């Protein structure tokens, strides 16, 4: 097993061969990937060294201290957090070598073509069809996807589509890597209640995907997609925040700076929410300590539920606290933010954007079912859709 000293020696070699001040950013990032210092827990030859994941922090700190350029992970979050671990787990050697380096470097942005207008919480009911063309062996894809972040900047997509409608819904799905520049891919902005369009609708009309871009076996798509979705939940719940980090910070600051806005009723609500936000912070901290100690607890399933509710209640309180100013909204102009910051704009924006927190990445209702069944061991509701051919399900 590689030690942190050996890793630091590699970092020094990289910095010597590519001095950050003199190297092109992309060249530097490619060299970093090739040196196995991109994500050290990945295998050798794929940007890593098979080292413990915890050693990544050693590399990152050393490179940051040397002023080395980073790969701007927030811009390529879907690729790093969802596409990469799935390709690593299910990709062929050829797919891993073709896709992982430009993904990590940020030369190729990824997006996720999963949700559909008719398949939200019930994702496995998706209707986008992929039909194998006999002569070429290529797949021809038709359908519509929705809530796609980065679709307008993405070069590639992870895509799930139905390849056998005669099978029950979980078994007739196949997972593909889709070229977003291919003919028949149309991306339209999807404007939200905030006025912005963070997301897109993606229309797929006769899109041709070579069989070499299938990830996993035909019909294995649901299993592959679960790997992607597990990584999504980890990345949504896992951020460390300081005291008064998140939504409670701005409203507390307004309370301190604007005594004329204070009322007794708002004071009680503010204190209740301040306490809950602090307890949520401690709960997240406890979860991280459990992970670090190698005793992962089930609390992770719940953190997103807590933050969604708190973000909504706190931002709602902030609009009320502002009084007449709460009647105003900064700007309804349709914009296409590349990076979404939930707390970045005014109180009205925070209030509206937070409505999505209990919907995106698994609705709170579905997450409560997951907690009830997987953590508490309560029985599932009786279902009649699991063993029925997809084509015979009500839509």
């Amino acid at each position: 097993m590689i030690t942190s000293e050996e890793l630091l020696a590699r970092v020094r070699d990289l910095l010597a061969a590519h001095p950050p001040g003199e190297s092109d950013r992309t060249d530097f990032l490619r060299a970093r990937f090739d040196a196995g210092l991109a994500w050290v827990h990945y295998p050798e030859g794929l940007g890593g060294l098979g080292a413990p994941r915890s050693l990544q922090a050693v590399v990152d700190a050393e490179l940051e201290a040397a002023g080395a350029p980073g790969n701007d992970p927030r811009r390529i979050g879907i690729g790093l957090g969802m596409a990469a671990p799935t390709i690593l787990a299910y990709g062929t050697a050829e797919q891993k070598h073709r896709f992982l380096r430009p993904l990590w470097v940020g030369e190729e942005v990824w997006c996720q073509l999963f949700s559909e207008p008719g398949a939200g919480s019930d994702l496995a009911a998706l209707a986008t069809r992929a039909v194998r063309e006999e002569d070429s062996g290529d797949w021809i894809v038709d359908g519509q996807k929705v809530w796609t972040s980065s679709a307008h900047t993405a070069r590639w997509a992870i895509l799930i589509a139905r390849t056998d409608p005669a099978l029950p819904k979980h078994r007739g799905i196949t997972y593909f890597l889709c070229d977003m520049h291919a003919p028949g891919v149309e991306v339209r902005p999807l404007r939200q209640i905030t006025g912005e369009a963070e997301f897109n609708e993606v229309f797929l009309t006769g899109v041709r995907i070579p069989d070499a871009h299938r990830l996993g076996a035909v019909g294995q798509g649901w299993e592959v997609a679960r790997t992607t979705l597990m990584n999504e939940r980890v990345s949504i719940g896992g951020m460390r925040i300081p005291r008064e980090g998140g939504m409670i910070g701005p409203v507390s600051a307004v309370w301190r700076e604007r005594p004329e806005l204070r009322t007794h009723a708002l004071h009680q609500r503010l204190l209740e929410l301040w306490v809950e936000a602090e307890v949520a912070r401690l709960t997240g901290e406890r979860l991280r300590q459990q992970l670090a100690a190698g005793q992962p607890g089930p609390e992770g399933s719940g953190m997103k539920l807590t933050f969604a509710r708190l973000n909504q209640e706190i931002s709602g309180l902030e609009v009320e606290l502002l009084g007449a100013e709460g009647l105003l909204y900064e700007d309804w102009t349709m914009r296409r933010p590349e990076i979404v910051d939930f707390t970045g704009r005014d109180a009205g924006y925070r209030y509206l954007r937070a409505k999505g927190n209990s919907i995106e990445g698994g609705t709170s209702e579905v997450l409560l079912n997951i907690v009830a069944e997987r953590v508490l061991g309560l029985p599932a509701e009786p279902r009649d859709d699991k063993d029925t051919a997809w084509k015979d399900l009500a839509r």
Partner: protein
Amino acid sequence: MTDETERTTPMASHAPFDLLYSETEEELRSAVRALLADRCDAASVLARAETDRPYDPELWSTLAGGIGAAGLLVPEKLGGQGASHREAAVVLEELGRAVAPAPYLTSAVLATEILLGCDTTSAEVAGLLAQVAAGARVCVPAVPLTLAPGAPLPSGVRDAGGGVLTGSAGPVADAVAADVLLVLADTGLYAVPAAAVTLVRAVPLDLTRPLATVELDGATGTRLGDPATARAAVAGALLSGAGLLASEQLGIAQWCLTETVAHVRARHQFNRPVGSFQALKHRLARLWLDVASARAAARAAADALATGSPDAPLTVAVAQAYCSGVAVRAAEECVQLHGGIGMTWEHPAHLYLKRAKADALALGSAGHHRTLVADFAELPSP
């Protein structure tokens, strides 16, 4: 740590708390749990709850002396175990989980902390502390159970001169179990033998923690500290007590959740386990989330107290403001989701509901602790 005037800035970044349980703490938990399973099952708690003395003397002697739980907060050189609030918190979790009638919070936490806040080099303080730490004597502060950190201290007892005390205090928890009472009078803190006072028993909402008014009519006490020392010692003890009460509340909530989940899995109506209905699953999933959060809050308070963190007053106030409500909600859900059986005397759910509701008043209500949060976090009232 116990200075009432100390303030923490809300943004100050102190070392992160250790929010996990150590191996030693888990071993202590197992020992206490095994003892309680053996001597403190629900049926025997219920049977004793209607008698004058709900306590089981054998349980106390094994818990306090045998396991050494009474001396966890006391340094070894003073006759204790030299452990900390973290370990005492684990004991309280288990006592809450078993809704055990034992004068632990009053004697092993509150009175012990008051004695530790006095001059422990004096023979009177050290002698009493050693006996309390060994579990040989039960010592209870003669202050109302509702007395909260940061609230004005009671002044109902006067010294007629030479430690001859007159007045009353109450409702005092566990006074009926006490060998010695710690009495706060105008001239300082006094140890008064239980035999020298009159106890007027009340009918408590929580049958597992008896209440009485302590009446002193010329009782003679031994002075343990001057008024300033006494007030600081009591204030420090109230902070510790409030912080550790959060762990008792966590234990209550955990039992209620576990018991309710087991019930809805087994109970069938409409040809299915009632726990398969989404309306119930969502309620229990939310309750689980509350309990997981209460665990983080209670652990933070215990660790802050154990390490003497400058963050302790805020962290204790946060834990109390949060955990009181969780314990009550868990007990109320337990009663409701058990259906009819949850309303009976026979089922132990009511013992937990009564303890949870009484605990929500003990050592300051959630509302009182929120006002402390307002103070510490600099979020002033209008």
